[in-house]
């Protein structure tokens, strides 16, 4: 890790802690929303940016996580227990869903997850006895940790920050372990990775399940943030939005989804002055980013950085030419 990187991380963490000070409730709410979507998008980044699989069910997994936590906490179970259940449930469902799809053919995961997302919506809406149907669940409590009550916006923000940092840390740990190398290898050249003893199907499945369980965690945070959940919040459109975060930010980059989530959550806010036209402008911006920098914004940044760096003299190039 370079000094620059460490400095960046410290600045980022401090900025996270200072961000809400003096801000209105609305801004704090938006910041919470950004962190929660960052967690979900980081999960999808694992599936997409590292294991190279398209999942279109990230919203469904968020929904499952949110409903599990909402139902349990409303029944009086502590949030810590509920979040554990949310994460486990989404992990197991991810395994069960991914296994048959990945066994068949790799790009079929996209189709299966798309159908799964639509099915989850139907179940959430129709099974009224459990989920409250289309009217949703209202009045989800916010967690209390001893003397620390997250009912107010600011404490809830710090609670979200802690969850975010723990998740990001765990993710960074995993990516630095041999698993991370295996995920990268999977993305770069799955056939080669396979020939080096990597069980590609199993690793892809794991990436998908872990990515899904991160959506479960995001859902478990979103339920107490909004204090209301309804099936319509977890449709395919949200899955596509999360996909957008990952791609626009830069898939395969650790900070890509975090940047992407910031853009997707905040951009409509910044474009609001354009009145009714902001979605049109938003769509145009996405198109332009995709056309000019398919690797997303971080990919673009990296390209610029490389272009600006003075070329390092490499002796081996000459030697290589002779070899």
């Amino acid at each position, binding site marked *: 890790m370079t000094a620059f990187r460490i400095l960046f991380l410290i600045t980022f963490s401090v900025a996270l802690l200072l961000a809400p000070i003096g801000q209105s409730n609305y801004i704090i709410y938006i910041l919470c929303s950004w962190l929660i979507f960052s967690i979900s998008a980081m999960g999808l980044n694992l599936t997409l940016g590292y294991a190279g699989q398209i999942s279109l069910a990230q919203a469904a997994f968020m929904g499952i996580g949110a409903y599990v936590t909402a139902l349990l906490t409303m029944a009086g179970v502590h949030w810590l227990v509920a979040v554990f259940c949310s994460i486990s449930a989404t992990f197991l469902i991810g395994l069960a869903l991914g296994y048959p799809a990945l066994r068949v053919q790799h790009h079929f995961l996209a189709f299966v997850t798309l159908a799964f997302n639509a099915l989850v919506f139907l179940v959430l*809406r129709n099974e009224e006895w459990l989920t409250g149907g289309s009217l949703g669940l209202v009045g989800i409590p916010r967690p209390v940790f001893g003397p620390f009550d997250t009912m107010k916006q600011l404490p809830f923000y710090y609670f979200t920050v802690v969850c975010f940092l723990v998740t990001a840390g765990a993710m960074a740990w995993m990516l630095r372990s041999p698993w991370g190398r295996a995920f990268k290898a999977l993305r770069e050249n799955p056939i080669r990775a396979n020939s080096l003893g990597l069980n590609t199907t199993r690793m892809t499945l794991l990436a998908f399940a872990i990515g899904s369980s991160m959506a479960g965690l995001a859902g478990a945070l979103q339920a107490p943030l909004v204090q209301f959940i309804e099936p319509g919040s977890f449709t395919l459109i949200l899955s596509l939005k999360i996909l957008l975060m990952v791609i626009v930010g830069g898939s395969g980059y650790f900070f890509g989804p975090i940047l992407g989530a910031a853009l997707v959550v905040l951009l409509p806010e910044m474009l609001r002055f354009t009145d009714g036209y902001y979605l049109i402008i938003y769509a145009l911006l996405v198109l332009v980013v995709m056309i000019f920098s*398919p690797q997303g914004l971080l990919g673009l940044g990296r390209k610029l950085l490389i272009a600006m760096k003075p070329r390092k003299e490499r002796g081996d190039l000459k030697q290589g030419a002779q070899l």
Partner: protein
Amino acid sequence: MAELLQILISGLSSGAIYALAAVGFTLLWQASQTINFAQGEFVMLPAFFVLAGMTLFGLPLWAAILTAFVLSIVILGAMFKKLVVEPMLPHGTMPLVIATIALGLLMKESVKEFYSAQGQPFPSLFPQHVMDFFGASVSVQDLCNLAVAFAAIIALQLFLQRTRTGRAMQATAQDPRVAEILGVDVKRMVMYTFLINGALAAIASILISPVYLAKFSNGETLGMIAFIAAIVGGFNQIRGALVGGLLIGVLDNLAAVYISAEYRTAIPLILLIVIIMVRPQGIMGTSEGRTV
């Protein structure tokens, strides 16, 4: 009996239009590995070209339809290919997927903002006359929809199989590198595919709008159904998309009447998942072979 017949006829009539959208989906996939998430909006838009032609420029219906046709081919076909697909193709599927999602949003919001947020009535090309057919009500419109959709798909199939250009397009779809070696102008063939998709979208739009009304958000449902139909039928076969579309149309109605109206949209989805697991190449599709 009359009930079942009614379901079948209504289902086929809707299904024929789903099939048109699904065929376009399949064509783009074959020609350029493009999963077009804006396909639903592609079917939504031409109806508004017609309406705009009639209300803003005072064109008669036939002229408006003709204009809409040309506009669809140019905008949804050529411009889509040139401005969106082409620059992104070298970078793999993902950026293109996102781009088509954004494009769908752009089209939807533009119609809403510049035309109307509300549904619009759309003139029917065919008489609304209803006939009794063994106890089931069949409108002339239904029959005409079926006929036009079938005719379009059969014509397309014949074109692909019987003409030189069509065969060149198929060769391109199967393996662009080989096609190139055989002297096929691959770029042009891919372009043709996009033009055809634009034309099919226009046909579907003009057939469907008198019944479904023209609304900016119509593409959401339609796109999803076309997508499912294409996969269920077989992503690499035009026949497959036809069968898939008809099947989904009938199944949707059957499910609503006999299984559960609340879960009617679940049935095609479950079918999709089952198909992927037991017959991933789709009902009519041929196996793509194991990708090593």
